[in-house]
């Protein structure tokens, strides 16, 4: 198979043209003219992404060509939108135009640099994704510790806006849960590769569905309890859903048995419903979740709207999306100032007002394509560990987009998740770029010629391109 690196470069150039155009239109709408430096943020981003492209060219030449440009587009538009908020604020306060590294947009640009360096380092250090499985138990422990740290820290060090998800040191804060995802996926994948046989073969049949034996349920129940603890002590449904969904789906991928999905959904919704009932009756640690559910059920009720921590955010977000309509007001022409938390949780609502349903759905399709390429890498790679890691990572990304977007649009109770690659925030950006680097690494193994697939079986014969042996396709036909 061809390396497709030039296709990647072309798409990347296209994405950067879009980011530059976005910047120009923003300035046209904000200043009523396009300044001579509108292209600078896009150019800086292009240099950064080009750097990663070069690293990929040398370390993962067969990697998927679509991942980097698609992510670069979203990341670039995120930087552009944050800069647009900075411009609007500067105009309102009659300040001079902020510098390219000032304000939230500038900081996001700097974070992008950091995230891309991390991704490049991962690609350079991990030349074979199977190496990761050697550190699986360490990673599992690291993941659980990262999840737990904010829960055990005192609120003053870990709580922002009612959710205990942070480690705060002075003005600097990181969200360890974002990185925990990566560690946990690797651990789950390793564990399930070891256990898949027993999980998928030993079973009892009830109502036509194969249910696993009780003792095999142990790890699932453990993770379920862990995610409920997150829900209760960190007051964050989204993260809980993320971890739990991650484990259930990895389990499903490993065993190919739908019963896990059914069990998982039942356990999760059961747990959430009980938490809701407990919140209604005894309050305590469940009260926060109960409030969120109430707000979700009746966002437009006056008592919910006026309450502190009520549905004000959600309603403003919905109104912004509604104002945008089909085509939006145009980049830079909306009023995202009305939407609270528009830099982080509600960035999709803020952008939605300006690019409309038409533009938002394009962004969603881009997310979808990123997830699809991740799953494709999982399908194509030959080793089970790689399959599970790629599937798990791609699914996490998709689930995270679902959780935050579902929250903003009122489909599920709103929880403070970041929108991957779009929201302001270094932790999220770095963790998600690491995720993409891992997917690039696995897709390189999946699409490239088999490194070890020859040697033994071609003695004497001419050294043919190993693609031939590797190209022998297996397909399973279900009876």
């Amino acid at each position, binding site marked *: *198979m061809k390396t*497709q690196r030039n*296709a990647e470069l072309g*798409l990347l150039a*296209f*994405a950067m*043209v*879009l980011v530059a*155009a*976005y910047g*120009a*239109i923003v300035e*046209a*709408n904000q200043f*009523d*003219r*396009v300044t001579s430096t509108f292209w600078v943020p896009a150019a800086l981003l292009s240099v950064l992404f080009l750097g990663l492209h070069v690293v990929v060219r040398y370390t993962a030449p067969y990697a998927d*060509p*679509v991942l980097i*440009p*698609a992510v670069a*587009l979203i990341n670039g538009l995120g930087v552009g939108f944050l800069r647009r908020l900075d411009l609007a604020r500067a105009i309102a306060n009659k300040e001079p135009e902020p510098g390219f590294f000032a304000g939230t947009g500038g900081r996001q640009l700097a974070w992008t640099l950091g995230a891309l360096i991390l991704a490049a380092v991962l690609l350079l250090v991990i030349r074979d994704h199977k190496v990761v499985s050697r550190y699986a138990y360490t990673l599992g422990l690291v993941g659980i510790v990262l999840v737990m740290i904010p829960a055990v820290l005192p609120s003053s060090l870990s709580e922002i806006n009612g959710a205990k998800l942070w480690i705060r040191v002075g003005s600097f804060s990181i969200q360890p849960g974002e990185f925990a995802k990566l560690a946990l996926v690797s651990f789950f994948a390793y564990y399930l590769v070891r256990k898949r046989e027993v999980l998928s073969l030993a079973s009892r049949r009830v109502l036509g569905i194969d249910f696993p034996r009780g003792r095999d349920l142990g790890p699932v129940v453990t993770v379920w309890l862990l995610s409920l603890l997150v829900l209760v002590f960190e007051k964050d449904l989204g993260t809980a859903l993320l971890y739990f969904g991650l484990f259930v789906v990895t389990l499903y991928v490993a065993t190919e048995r739908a019963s896990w999905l059914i069990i998982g959904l039942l356990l999760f919704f059961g747990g959430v419903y009980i938490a809701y009932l407990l919140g209604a009756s005894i309050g305590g640690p469940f009260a926060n979740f109960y409030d969120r559910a109430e707000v979700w059920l009746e966002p437009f009720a006056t008592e919910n709207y006026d309450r502190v921590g009520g549905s004000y955010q959600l309603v403003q977000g919905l109104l912004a999306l509604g104002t945008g309509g089909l*085509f*939006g*007001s*145009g*980049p830079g*022409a909306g009023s995202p100032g009305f939407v609270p938390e528009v830099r982080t949780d509600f960035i999709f609502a803020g952008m939605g007002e300006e*690019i*409309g349903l*038409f*533009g938002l759905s*394009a*962004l969603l399709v*881009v997310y979808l*394509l990123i997830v*699809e*390429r991740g799953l494709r890498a999982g399908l194509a790679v*030959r*080793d089970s560990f790689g399959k599970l890691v790629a599937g798990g990572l791609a699914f996490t990304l998709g689930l995270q987009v679902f959780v935050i977007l579902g929250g903003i649009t009122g489909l599920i109770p709103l929880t403070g998740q970041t929108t991957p690659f779009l929201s302001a925030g270094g932790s999220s950006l770095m963790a998600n770029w690491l995720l993409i680097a891992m997917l690039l690494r696995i897709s390189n193994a999946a699409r490239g010629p*088999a490194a*070890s*697939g020859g040697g*033994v*079986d*071609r003695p004497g*014969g001419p050294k*043919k391109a190993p*693609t*031939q*042996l590797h*190209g*022998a*396709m*297996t*397909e*399973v*036909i*279900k*009876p």
Partner: protein
Amino acid sequence: MPEFVLTVARFGFLILLWIFVFTVVGVIRKDLFAGVRSKGIVASPRGVGGTVPSGPPPAKAKRGKAARQLVVTAGQLAGTRITLGEAPITIGRAEDSTLVITDDFASARHARLVPRDGQWFVEDLGSTNGTYLDRGKVSGPTPVPLGVPIRIGRTSLELRP
């Protein structure tokens, strides 16, 4: 800045965004078809003469039908098929085999199938429990006719046109 320019820019941006999406889809599509084409080249039977497989599907070679697929007919992997190319197929429990079988009676590198001038030969690689072609034990490279089962442990394989 005139209203007209802003409107054009606004819609132009959205259109450009969707063009990007479709370009990405186009790259993915090309990728898929590239895979299909290379599979076609790999899968072409040797009987045709190994140059460029063009024109009608070369099903009728000189010596009857050429084998195109290796199908697992019994055992855990029953139903698996491998499209045959010009590369040898290795069978065994080792992860790097072309066909990885999880059969307790199979060795890590059990047997291999090698094409010679359009005919496939099966060869035992010193396995513990042996490879059988129909009922006879395979000792050296043995030509494999179409539809005759190769038995490895509990697994049976057949060449199909």
